[in-house]
């Protein structure tokens, strides 16, 4: 049986190999993903994001346990940053997910952000496709922090959970800086710590600044203690309620498809230009003239577009 068939049959080793392919060998991955067509679109894709140290891994671990209790299979993509200096990474999220290691119904993959070739967004979204095709009912994506690429991922998941902790003046500040918009469900984790009520109230206050028309989703703010599992069932319930709105899910999936499609087109368009000698010469000339200040970037692009179309 070849790799694609083994992925479709749900074989863990094949899933592992296939994810390495989408991370490192785009051409081979393209061939592989072609076999997945028709088997994709069944998985519930859930993003979990928040500042470092708020308990994302522990929460993901508990969410996986909750979905397992409901009889669903789970794939987890745990993302940590690549060091920009060495290109290496320490991927440590598994430490908090050990209970699932012998459960065939939970597959955990640690991924680094890379930072080249579309990095996080391209490999992560392709890994989601693989887990989906492999029959995982739920795919949990744990992002590394609150960078722009992660916002993109979260925005295109079927549902996004934004996690913070009490008394993290910083946590709430960070949320103001952009991730407030992406949360479909907000979680104040470590509810046993002082200030949990206040943190939840602050988020509620920020949410109340938005307008909610009839039938639009107002993100709930929930409190959990992931270390013990307290409050986690309510998070799953909220996520399911949100993702259970068919129009919402369709719209998310459309966004996800469009983002991926335009990314790939952009990438392949540039590759094609660089591939042929003739067009590469055009690029090189434009670079020279731009560097010398003879032409502005817009004019250079207009020229190249005209001469290559």
């Amino acid at each position, binding site marked *: 049986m070849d790799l694609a068939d083994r992925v479709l049959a749900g074989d*863990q*080793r094949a*899933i*592992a*190999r296939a*994810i*390495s392919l989408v*991370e*490192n*060998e785009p051409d081979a991955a393209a061939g592989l993903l072609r076999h997945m067509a028709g088997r994709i679109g069944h998985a519930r894709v859930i993003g979990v994001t928040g500042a470092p140290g708020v308990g994302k891994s522990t929460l993901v671990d508990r969410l996986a346990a909750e979905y397992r209790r409901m009889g669903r299979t789970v794939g987890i993509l745990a993302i940590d940053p*690549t*060091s920009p*200096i*060495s*290109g*290496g*990474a*320490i*991927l*440590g999220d*598994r*430490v908090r997910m*050990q209970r699932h*290691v*012998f459960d065939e119904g939970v*597959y*955990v*993959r*640690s991924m*680094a952000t890379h930072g*080249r*070739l579309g990095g996080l967004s391209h490999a992560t979204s392709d890994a989601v496709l693989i887990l989906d095709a492999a029959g995982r009912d739920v795919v949990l994506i744990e992002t590394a922090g609150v960078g722009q690429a992660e916002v993109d991922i979260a925005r295109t998941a079927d549902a996004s959970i934004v996690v913070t902790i009490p008394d993290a003046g910083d946590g709430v500040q960070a949320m103001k800086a952009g991730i407030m918009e992406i949360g479909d469900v907000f979680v104040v984790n470590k509810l046993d710590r002082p200030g949990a009520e206040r943190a939840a109230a602050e988020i509620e206050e920020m949410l109340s600044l938005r307008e909610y028309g009839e039938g639009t989703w107002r993100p709930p703010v929930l409190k959990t203690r992931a270390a013990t599992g307290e409050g986690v069932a309510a998070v799953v319930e909220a996520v399911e309620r949100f993702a259970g709105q068919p129009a919402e899910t369709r719209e998310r999936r459309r966004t996800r498809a469009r983002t991926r499609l335009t990314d790939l087109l952009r990438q392949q368009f540039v590759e094609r230009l660089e591939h042929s000698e003739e067009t590469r010469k055009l690029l090189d000339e434009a670079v020279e003239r731009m560097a010398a200040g003879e032409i502005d970037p817009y004019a250079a692009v207009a020229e190249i577009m005209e001469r290559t179309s």
Partner: protein
Amino acid sequence: MARPIRVVIAKPGLDGHDRGAKVIARALRDAGMEVIYTGLRQTPEQIVEVALQEDADVIGLSILSGAHNHICPRLVSLLREKGLGDVLVVVGGIIPDADVPQLEALGISGVFQPGTPMQAISRFIESRVQRGASAAT
């Protein structure tokens, strides 16, 4: 694009001393590898399952407790059972000289005793994994 070498670092056994494992994890990251750190008290069964799910090229064990003669044979035989016989296994920690030949005979590719420079370990892994990759093509 060259695929980064993926290494599972595990600390089997019951003692709680994971400093060595963390130091080597950082050193391998600084050498450009992706290090999956799994934490304390891992059984051979857990380590092999993680290596499978993570599509690891290398397993690095930190063993200080003297349990290497128990853990290593079990790990190697589980790897073969799961079809992961091509995963490179290296061991670091307190390993008596007398035990080294036996571990190597088992299929442990590298045994690193206290005082081994970090660069020697990362260079060893790089040379072995590259050799394996070119043999496969």
